[in-house]
């Protein structure tokens, strides 16, 4: 059994946490962004204008699709720039006045291992700054969890059925809880004792419904998948989270947040209609004119997906939920600024379609000779495309404070098919079973989890061979280079699924290190 000492926070989180950027570093990032973002906007518009000229049209169908994809990417880029544009940070909220309030801490559990849940329950009981009542919400009815709750003085709750999954579990607990504030932690996110001290002050503003804090994966060292997943999270909870906060458009992210009970009651508890209750809750709260604020301070140490199956399951759930939420955002009665921000976030999960299209272009060329851009003008393309591409990468690197890694990018690209599957699920209304993200590595090779990416790799490889067999002209060489680039990116992305996953969290096998520890270039 985990001891309280083991469960407690230790001091090296800052070293492990690129997301938690110091104010001085933010200032430095902001200075650079003030220069980079206008350049990026100018260069992006220049490229797009060049592309939109009628003489660029090659194959009209491919050209139409290319324009659609590029416009989608442009709008996404514009949204990113808007989000990250340096603005005056919200002033720190006041100290909490008066006696410490009652706070109910909810830890929903389904089938997670006891040694993952134990430290979280222990840490929840040690949170300072409020009168804490810990609820262990067991949706599987495991007696050992009841023992665990008893051991740490938590209240064990089991509702008898699993209706509406996590949202249903939380709503069931709300009926039993009475405190004016509720803190929610997934059972693999160990709270910091300072969680309430840091967040309760925001509740002095009676309009604040949610104080969201980062999802930090403390197991980022334990394998390539958690390292890459952590890097993806760090970009969201770093530059994007900070930007959304200054725009008043933060999203509740499902764990590591404090919520006002009145606000929850006002919107009827956690939404149960869709796949991701947190985004839907955010929409409802914003519609009811509640505020969601973000504190860019790591106050919980979580476990990211440790193998590919877990990552795929998590991303598919998020993608499906966000695609489903697009309609809710459009229909929601929320201010335009927030609506656009939420749309920007949800639409990101459609970008898999653009990746599929870009991957297809060299394949289509090799087999049919069709190109979206008129060959006679494509020689000028690089003059416009290269600066656009370079400045976009630089903006992501600078805005993210260097937290977004190549491996994270490769993992994202290799799993483009998840977003396509999510869209199909959303359009067809197919029921998707709620699958909790596995908390421990299966330590097996998992080619099945990345089968669509492997098929894509196979298609790319065959196309390369066909291209070489046809004879390498200049156009073929160019498309061959694109094929090689895509293949390398996808191969790096799926690689963790093709090798035996490393030992579970705790040990430090293999190579992965945090972005902040990579050797400086």
């Amino acid at each position, binding site marked *: 059994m985990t001891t309280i000492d083991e469960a407690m926070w230790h001091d090296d989180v800052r070293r492990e946490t690129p997301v938690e950027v110091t104010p001085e570093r933010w200032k430095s990032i902001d200075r650079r962004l003030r220069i980079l973002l206008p350049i990026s906007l100018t260069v992006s518009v220049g490229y797009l204008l060049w592309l939109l000229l009628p003489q660029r049209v090659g194959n009209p169908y491919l050209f139409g699709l290319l324009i659609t994809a590029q416009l989608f990417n442009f709008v996404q880029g514009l949204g990113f720039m808007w989000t990250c544009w340096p603005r005056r940070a919200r002033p720190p909220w006041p100290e909490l006045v008066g006696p410490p309030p009652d706070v109910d801490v909810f830890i929903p559990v389904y089938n997670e291992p006891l040694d993952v849940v134990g430290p979280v329950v222990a840490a929840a009981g040690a949170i300072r700054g409020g009168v804490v009542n810990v609820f262990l919400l067991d949706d599987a009815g495991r007696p050992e969890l009841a023992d665990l709750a008893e051991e740490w003085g938590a209240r064990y709750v089991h509702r008898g059925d699993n209706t509406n999954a996590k949202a249903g579990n939380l709503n069931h607990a709300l009926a039993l809880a009475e405190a004016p504030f509720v803190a929610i932690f997934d059972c693999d996110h160990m709270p910091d004792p300072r969680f309430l001290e840091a967040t309760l002050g925001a509740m002095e503003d009676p309009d604040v419904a949610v104080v969201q804090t980062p999802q930090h994966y403390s197991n980022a060292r334990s394998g390539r998948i958690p390292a890459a997943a952590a*890097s993806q999270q760090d970009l969201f909870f770093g530059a994007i989270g900070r930007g959304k906060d200054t725009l008043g458009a933060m999203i509740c992210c499902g764990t590591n947040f404090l919520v006002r009970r009145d606000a929850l009651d006002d919107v009827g508890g956690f939404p149960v209609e869709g796949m991701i209750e947190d985004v839907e809750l955010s929409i409802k709260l914003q519609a009811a004119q509640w505020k969601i604020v973000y504190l860019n301070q790591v106050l919980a140490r979580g476990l990211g997906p440790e193998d590919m199956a877990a990552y795929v399951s998590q991303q598919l759930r998020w993608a499906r939920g966000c695609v489903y939420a697009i309609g809710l955002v459009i229909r929601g009665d929320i201010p335009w600024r927030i609506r656009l921000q939420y749309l920007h976030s949800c639409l990101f999960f459609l970008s898999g379609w653009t990746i599929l299209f870009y991957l297809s272009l060299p394949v289509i060329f090799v087999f049919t000779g069709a190109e979206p851009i008129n060959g006679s003008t494509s*020689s*000028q393309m*690089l*003059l416009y495309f*290269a600066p656009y*591409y*370079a400045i976009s*990468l630089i903006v*992501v*690197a600078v805005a993210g404070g*260097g*937290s*977004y*890694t*190549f*491996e*994270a*990018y490769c993992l994202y690209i290799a799993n483009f098919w998840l977003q396509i599957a999510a869209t199909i699920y959303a359009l067809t209304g197919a029921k998707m079973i709620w699958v909790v993200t596995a908390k421990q590595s299966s330590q097996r090779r998992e080619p099945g989890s990345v089968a669509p990416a492997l098929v894509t790799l196979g298609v790319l490889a065959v196309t390369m061979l066909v291209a070489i067999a046809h004879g*390498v002209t*200049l*156009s073929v*060489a*160019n498309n*061959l*280079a*694109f094929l*090689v*680039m895509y293949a*390398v*990116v996808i191969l790096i992305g799926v690689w963790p699924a093709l090798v035996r996953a490393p030992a579970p969290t705790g040990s430090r096998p293999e*190579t992965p290190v945090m*972005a*902040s520890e*990579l*050797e*400086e*270039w």
Partner: protein
Amino acid sequence: MVSMVVGAAVRFDIPRGLWLDEAISVSVARMPYGAMIHRLATADNHPPLYFTALWGSIRLVGQSEVALRVPSILFGMLLIPLVYLLGKEAYDRKTGAVAAIFVSVAPFAVWYSQEVRPYELLMVFGVLALWAQLRILRRGGWYPWVVFSVAVVAMVGTQYFGVWQLAVQELVFVGAIVLRWRRHQRPGALLRGWVSSTVPVALALVPLALLMKQQYSADQATGQAFGGAASVGINTGSHSIYSVITNFGYSIIGFHSTSVMSEVNSFWPLAMLGALALLGRRSKPVTYLLVAMVAVPVTLMFVLAGFKGSLGDVRYLSTTVPVLLLLMARAGTVLATSRRALNVVVVGVVAVMAVGLFDQQFSSSNPRRYNFREALARVNSHARPGDIILYDPVDDELNTVVDYYSPHVRSAPLSPGSSVKAGHTVFVVASPTLMNTSDRSTLYSGLSHLGEHGHRIEHWVFPNVEVWVYR
């Protein structure tokens, strides 16, 4: 040490003869020193340092083909340890060593190590100035200031375009002083050193500026326009992004035929992959400095090339090439996560460069290879007393080349009225790739005139050189 040995071996193996630009250097350096400076001031557009070195070298070691190349070869070999030192100062020993290995076989560095032109010296002084600047910024002290001051004056004294790097370096010093002042880090020593360096550097550059003004006036008077450089085969002077990529290709894999370079250019998407691979790597300030040393001169020359296409040539950006190779070495050392991976990267890059070097040095399709040596050797083997070589272009430079390789055969410029004397052979040696359309039509009318008075009995074709034989 291995890099030095390999570097020396490939630099002393010189498979090509002199071409026209080299002939200019030779004819200038053969003059008495005062006449040479006068000639540079009135009929050239280069500063005098390299020619002074060549002038001394000719008098010390003679005028054989290898002897003429001695200054470039020596500086080419010196570049290898200097790049190591720069890499070590900028990053670490490992990066320095990898960069030195790259430089030892880098086709561009090898090419100009063998050319009787100033570009290898430009690279050496550029690297030295950079090394000194890093040393100053990191450790201070007086002697790096001396090295820096001497190196930058020598750099501009070798090639005026060295001024781009000098400008960037001076801006970096100013920026560093302002930054230290704002951070309350006592910028006094840096400021004093900078002033103590800038004043003598500026004074030393005054005579160069006056010389340049004189050259510019002379060029304007002759209607050449300043910087009238000879075209060198492939038209990199075209003002497009592909000319930048072609020049980038030249600087990494050397000079190759247009078709090879076009194919290499088509693989530009792989550069996207390289850029992606750097995601998540925080850059050191020194990397920004090195990138600026490449990006600023390239951008400025790209703009200038918009006005005068011949300036869009990588040789005028020689200072950027060792820096580029160092940045490549750095990318390799940070991206390779193990020693084995680094070895694979180094071997891979060296293999690519070695293939490039071989093709550059020995392929007849290299557009910068002008094989006057072989052409004139064949002429020599066929020429009898009374025969004559007519050359075109009719410049002094080709005259120098012809005199150098065929000193015992009479020679004269080809003219429209040139004719064939009975019983004698006329060898017309020309390089059509060096000519514009009008010059080419003059050549062909001269040839047809010769054809009217004699019979064309042979036509020999060499890389960028042709010989027509009439009797």
